[in-house]
Each structure stands twice: as structure tokens, then as C-alpha cells.
């Protein structure tokens, strides 16, 4: 037992333990997602966050200790944002052919996402710091976190709202779009990508390849649009 305690106190000092745990928990979450037939409710991020939070609680580990290891994964959010340029570059020919619908849907979708979320939260008396974390929630996580930090919002709360928005969009998109009787796969995919970023895009690819390509385009374009629209939308509620 003393041996275990010694090994534990050695390992819990360095970043290796929690970096490994983060990757292992995600691998587990991804395995559950595949086993559940890629059901959007079995989101691998939600599963791995719950597993890791339970581990931290059981071992009495602080978030600061955990983050000393997990920061190496967190750091990759920046390079991942830059890497989104490649799928955007790949869909440039499709973008050229549908430039006007894309721009109109981007502006309307991005404004609706930020303004309606802020209006509902504001009506229920949500505090200003929390509103700052809510405004950018339709952008992909690395971008939303960057924007929220600039507006004084908490990065962790932003991450949670981004994930919730992604899962919600993946679940509601098909019923909502069917109810509207929209058959244009470009319109359906693009709106899902603008609203629900990577999680919505992954869902759109499962439904139809054209929807997936336009969802990826919507996600990348909204990463840029949200950086401009979210601070403006937030200023209306302060």
C-alpha cells in the first residue's frame, strides 16, 4: 500500500498521468459512440468528460493538477483552427457556385444563433459574465473559446455550451428540417454546420455527402463570422 502511495505521489506530480488519462477516456468515449451506432446522444466528448470528472473526484485531484497534463491537448485547439483552412479550401468550388445563398444563410444563421440565445438567456435573468460565454456557442470550440475569452467569458463554460449546442443540433436538425419540407441538401447541411459546428458536421456527413460538405463549409465560415458577430450581439445586451 505504501508502495502504491509512493508511485501515485510520483505520477500525480507530472503531466504524464492526466495526459494519458485524457486520451484513454476519449478512446473509451469514442468506442461507446461507435457501439451506440453513432447515435448523437452518445457524444464521445460528454462521455470522456464525465469519466474524467469522476476520476478527479475519486482521487481528490484538483482541476489545476489535471490541466497541467491536459494542457498539451488543449494547446492543439489553436493549430486545429488554422487547419480548418484545408476543408474550406477544398469546398471553394462549391462555394463559388452558391456564393449568394451561402453568404445570406451565413449572416442570418449566425445572427439568429447569437441573438436568440442571448435574448432567451437575458429574459431569464442570466448574468452578464455567463452571457459572454453564450454569445459564441455556435462557433467551433477553439474559436468560441478564443472569442469568449476576449469578451470576458469563461473558457470552460463556453466549451460546455459549445458541446451542448453541437449535440442539440445533431439531434434536432433532421426533424426540424423535415418539418420545414426543405429538400436542398446544401441548405440543410450548411445551416447545421453554421449552428452546430463539428458535431453537426459529423452528423450531416452521416445523412448525405453534399450536406456534409456544406456543413463543413458552414462551420469554417461561421468560425470567422462569429468572431465579428458575437461581440456585436453581446453589446446589445449589456
Amino acid at each position, binding site marked *: 500500500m505504501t508502495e502504491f502511495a509512493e508511485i501515485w505521489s510520483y505520477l500525480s506530480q507530472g503531466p504524464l498521468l492526466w495526459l494519458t488519462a485524457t486520451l484513454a477516456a476519449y478512446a473509451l468515449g469514442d468506442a461507446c459512440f461507435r457501439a451506440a451506432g453513432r447515435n448523437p446522444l452518445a457524444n464521445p466528448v460528454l462521455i470522456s468528460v464525465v469519466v474524467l470528472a469522476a476520476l478527479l473526484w475519486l482521487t481528490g485531484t484538483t482541476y489545476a493538477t489535471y490541466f497541467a497534463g491536459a494542457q498539451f*491537448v488543449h494547446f492543439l485547439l489553436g*493549430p*486545429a483552427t488554422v*487547419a480548418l483552412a484545408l476543408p474550406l479550401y477544398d469546398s471553394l468550388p462549391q462555394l463559388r457556385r452558391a456564393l449568394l445563398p451561402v453568404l445570406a444563410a451565413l449572416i442570418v*444563421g449566425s445572427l439568429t444563433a447569437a441573438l436568440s440565445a442571448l435574448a432567451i438567456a437575458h429574459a431569464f435573468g442570466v448574468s452578464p459574465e455567463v452571457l459572454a460565454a453564450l454569445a459564441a456557442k455556435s462557433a467551433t470550440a477553439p474559436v468560441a473559446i*478564443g*472569442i469568449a475569452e476576449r469578451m470576458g467569458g469563461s473558457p470552460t463554460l463556453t466549451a460546455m455550451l459549445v458541446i451542448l449546442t453541437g449535440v442539440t443540433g445533431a439531434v434536432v436538425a433532421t426533424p426540424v428540417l423535415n418539418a420545414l419540407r426543405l429538400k436542398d441538401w446544401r*441548405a440543410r447541411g450548411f445551416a447545421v454546420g453554421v449552428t452546430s459546428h463539428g458535431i453537426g458536421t459529423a452528423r450531416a456527413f452521416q445523412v448525405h455527402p453534399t450536406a456534409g460538405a456544406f456543413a463543413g463549409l458552414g462551420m469554417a465560415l461561421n468560425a470567422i463570422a462569429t468572431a465579428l458577430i458575437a461581440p456585436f450581439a453581446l453589446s446589445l445586451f449589456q
Partner: protein
Amino acid sequence: MLHALTALLLCQLVGEAATRSLSLPLPGPVLGLVLMLALLVSFPRFAALMRPVAQGILAHLSLLFVPAGVGVVGHLATLGGQTMALMLAVVGSTVLSIAAGAVTFAAVARLTGARDD
């Protein structure tokens, strides 16, 4: 691999430096994205170099949310009574924005004759 990774970090670094020094409203990595896109458009052969590394990072994009997501658990207690309001805001705005975006796209495509092909 080495060159692609260096190019990614270099774009981010230039983006960070430019947004800080010019106090632009964009996060540094978003400006890095725009810069990378400009490079890809200017030098199409550059895409072949970037593709393996970019696809490698983007294939597990959702893994990168996990460390920040774990921090949420500590936050839940401080949210208290605001949790329900935030849930309503997220679900309501997601339904509205998917509907508004898709209807706008389809309407403008019909008006401008931008056919699906």
C-alpha cells in the same frame, strides 16, 4: 509532417502577433486560418503538403474539447439557478438558427437560380 506542422504553428503565431499588436477583434488562430487559406489559394501545391497533418488533427477535433469540458464540472455548482435558463437558450437558439439558416439558403438559391448540381 515537420514542414506542415511548422506552417500551421507559423500561421497561428503570425495571427496571434498581428491581432495583439493591431488589437483586432479576431482571435489569433482565426486570422491564422485566413492566412493559411490565402497560402492554399496562392500556392495550390501547398495543399498536398498540408493535407496529412490537417486531416490528422481534424479527425479528432472533438478530443481537443475534453480538457476545457472537464473544467465545466467545477463550474456547474456556480451556475446554480441559471442552468435551466441556459439549457432553454441553447435548445431554442439551435432550433431557430438551423431553421432560419436553411430557409434563407433555399430561398436565396431559388431567387438567384444557384442550382444544386
